[in-house]
């Protein structure tokens, strides 16, 4: 199973086995990872599963869709070039080892 590492703003790191097909948001929520709120439950409606993706993994991600792009403009912590919504990153074998940083605040 691909391993995803979540690093909090305070520097706390957790590495989780996330089944392929699940999202980075689901991997966090189902394993009690702090820093991901996921208020809307993964529907790309709330921007509370905002993560900063480590640069080297960016080329492996799908392009940012129109929904995600609009939503990322409303995040509580600043949007950066490596900002993504965790609910829009579907875990796959190539993403094994993915590292994401959760922002200081989601709301």
């Amino acid at each position: 199973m691909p391993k995803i590492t979540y690093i909090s703003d305070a520097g706390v790191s957790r590495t989780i086995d996330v089944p392929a097909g699940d999202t980075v948001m689901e991997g966090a929520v189902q394993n009690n990872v702090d820093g991901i709120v996921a208020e809307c439950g993964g529907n790309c409606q709330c921007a509370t599963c905002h993560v900063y993706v480590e640069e080297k993994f960016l080329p492996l991600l799908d392009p940012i869709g129109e929904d995600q792009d609009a939503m990322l403009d409303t995040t509580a912590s600043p949007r950066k070039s490596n900002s993504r919504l965790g609910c829009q990153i579907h875990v796959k074998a190539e993403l094994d080892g993915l590292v994401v940083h959760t922002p200081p605040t989601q709301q």
Partner: protein
Amino acid sequence: MAVVIIGGGQGGFQTAASLRAEGYEEHITLIGDEPGVPYQRPPLSKGFLLGKQEQRHAELRPAAFYETQRITLVTARATAIDREARRVKLASGEQIEYDTLVLATGARNRMLPHEDVFYLRTLGEATEIRQRLSAAQDVVVIGGGFIGLEVAAAARTLGKQVTVIEGQERLMARVVAPVVSEYFRNQHEAKGVDVLLNATLYRIGDKEVLLGERTRRPADLVIAGIGVVPNVELAREAGLPVGNGITVNEYLQTPDQRIFAIGDCAECPSIFAEACVRLESVQNAVDQAACVAKAIVGHRAPYTAVPWFWTDQYDIHLQMAGLPAGFDQVVTRGDPQTRKFSVFYFRGGRLCAVDSVNRPADHLAARKLIGARTTLSPDQAKDESFDLKSAV
């Protein structure tokens, strides 16, 4: 000190989670009458029916969350509230004491007076419908609202022959303007769904439904989505005022200061409408829960969140912001032919609601515009060269 929450849906869960996030340290008991941990309902009529999502994806948090957050989950039906003794009585006879009580009792499906009709609200019901869908050929959906149309879209995507029976003259008539209704009817028909408007179910026969004497459609699965009835009985029997929901003030408080009501079951004053409103949405449940959690820890403020909603049918993403009730003017931004457009509703010259079809940026701008009581004019709204964000 203890908070007891009745209702294990989105609002009940969020109240408990927000209380802990706000630093509340005392006992929290969350009473729900469904088995398992709280889950979200929106996927049940969408990805879950299609088999794209499973139960674990719908669960809001794993069981371990409730342990670490010290939230006591009680699977039981609450049968009465004793306001004098400040106790909730359960069907088992057990009683739970509270200092503050939050009613998040939700709503239940309105039923038809016919047998052999399936309804979708709970995970259990969705699971049964999903199983029956796999064996069905001809699916009849009663009700052309959000749930009915989402179910119709899922069934059609699974290759079923689908008929939608709607009593009104257009789809989603209660919530959207005619131009949006028309767009969705066209899309469903283009996918091969048989949409019958101004139609009423007369009888369910053997593998068919009858609409009046002559019209009949084959049916081996009949699913109804014809609205909900708020669960107000506990509140009413406890002597609390009830209108089209449990009546609360702008702080979501009943006349009993120790009792709040939120979500689908509650009716409250809204700065976005001219009357009290009772809304059925995730946003409403979540934001009202957060508002009540803040009040309980001493940060009382009126509830003023902008209402928003969404529905997904096929690849069409409809997002709605604000409350269109009483609108007197509508303008369209963008061309429905392009599959991307927004409809702006005005009431007395002021923007009151926006429906966006596959235009998420418009929707997000709309949430801000409506919240800011914008003076955006109809001419500006329909002019695509006008930057909506500049009117906030």
